């Protein structure tokens, strides 16, 4: 299958907002939604094994809730979860590329481009490295 909507998800408020948009897009285009959580920690410092496992467990909890959220918003949308052993940005890009995604949906972080470029901010990386269209969803003001 190809042409899914891919959502980069980290369980935080920004990605919950993005989840709503992603669900709407998936429903409007009648495409399945793939929720991606990349759980590999930074390789700097070594000793990644157990931390990776712990983060993966967190990812399982987060994405379980995310699936429930999507179903609550629109039960007709087909949802799938991908827990990927990559850094978060790589995970989203990789899944989108393999699936030939219709679009990537991701939350904005509100960081400037300079900081984003220097510090390898996830949204920034995805926007600039993706070969697929990217929808960046800002957090609404009231929060």
């Amino acid at each position, binding site marked *: 299958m190809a042409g899914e909507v891919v959502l980069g998800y980290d369980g935080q408020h920004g990605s919950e907002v993005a989840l709503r948009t992603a669900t709407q897009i998936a429903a409007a285009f009648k495409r399945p939604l793939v929720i991606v959580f990349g759980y590999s920690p930074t390789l700097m410092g070594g*000793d990644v094994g*157990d931390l990776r496992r712990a983060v993966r467990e967190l990812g399982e909890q987060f994405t379980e809730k995310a699936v429930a959220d999507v179903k609550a918003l629109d039960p007709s949308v087909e949802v799938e979860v991908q827990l990927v052993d990559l850094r978060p940005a790589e995970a989203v890009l*990789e899944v989108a590329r393999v699936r030939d995604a219709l679009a990537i949906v991701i939350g904005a972080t509100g960081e400037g481009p300079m900081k984003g470029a220097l510090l390898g901010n996830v949204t920034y990386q995805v926007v600039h490295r993706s070969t697929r269209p990217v929808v960046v969803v800002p957090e609404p003001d009231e929060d």
Partner: protein
Amino acid sequence: MSSETAQAAAGGSVESKGLKSDALGLASATVIGVASTAPGYSLAATLGVVTAAGVGFKAPAIMWIAFLPMACIASAFYYLNRADPDCGTNFSWVTRSIGPRWGWMGGWSSMVADLIIMPSLAAIAASYTLSLFGLHSQADNLWWQLALGILFIMAMTWICVVGIELSARSQLILLGTELGVLVLFSVVALYKVWAGKIHGSVQPSISWLTPTNMGGAKALTEGMLAAVFIYWGWDTATSVNEECEDSSQTPGKAGVLSTFILVAIFVVVTFAAQAVQGPGYLSDNSSDVLSATGSIVFGTTGIGWFCLKLLVLAVLTSSAASCQTTILPAARTALSMAMHRAAPAKLGEVDPKRLTPAFSSWLYGVISCVWFTALTLLTRYQGGDVLTWSALGVGLMISYYYGQCGFACVIYYRRYLFKSVKNFFFVGLLPLIGGITLAFLFVYSLKDMTKSDYTDPAANWFGVNPVMVMGLGALLLGLPLMFWWNTHDHAFFRVRPDPIDTRPPPEGGDPLPALVEPGAPR
């Protein structure tokens, strides 16, 4: 991408462990290996200490000799990591091969090693920051030292907690600058010495590199103890290299490449630096050895001034990188121990927002600050200096836990050692040589430290050498803690080492079962 990856992603399964990055190319893998060792900082912290050990002009030789046991241990790391990639810590390897008590002490010793080196990092960061801004008059000021050092430790801890990570390109630029400026320093120094432009310089000799007449066993071991530390962190490259599994060439190449870069840079810089004013000058200026030597080499005006500042800046960024590669493994070992019920569960908490072991990182940062303050005050009022004590103390710890790892590898794979020549050599012989060398270094250094003339005669705590109190004391402090935890939760200590049917061969195999079954009784 491999077909496995494509299947995993396209198959739509929830599990997709098969997705692995082959984005971690040769450059990135090499960068991580070299940056984890932090050559700029390592040199700044140890040049003066190694020359002070009494090895005369042989410091460059010490630099490559110290690499040999480390390379042997790297082979042990590589193969143990293959058996147990899902844990990937010295703590779990030793537990599986020798037993839970040794494993516990292995984890403890690696955390203590990280802790012992923190004052050195903070002190270097403080003195090179002052040097960067030309505040030389403040360099000996206790309050500046303490304030800048603590600020540095807390800032680095914060970076680890938040999970800020330089992009691959920024890392490459930083490391490139660091290596570039070290090479520039060496080239300019050697040229000026050769051309007779530096007053008081020493004509370099090839005999500086040969392993003969090293000033006796005491000088050699003390020099080695300080020098094993410069290669510490390099093993990270071996385990990280496992990550770029998809490309069968990259891991080996990156390991070899980072090795050559490191050995070359350490030997060349040491060689050049001692030609400038002789080894005595390096030990006399051990606290800011690169900026002191750099100001002679580059001068303090014009383009030389700029190069000097660049050198100082390179040491600072290198210290920052090294500090992170010290805090991260310490916090991760704590997390590992907690996850296997060898330590309180609180240490195993992962912050849900940052996805990092925030609690253990902060705890580690705070303890580091306390230890840095204590050591700075003690050395100030008792004589001695922070850098020497940290480097020698951490040398003891590294000898202990790396040595243990070498033996662990041989014991773990004992049934495979004679299956092939390759196994015998890389899984048996090299780790064993590394283990024996480091064990010898550990025992001999301890014995040596009981003599009163070690490092600094003025310093004497309770009639014993302070480095020994610090190193051995910190290691032994683990014992009561281990026994306390054993009475609290016994599950981890019931682990049996090395059940024969679960042990994969050196070529790798199925994932090993958990050390402690979930829900095991106390």
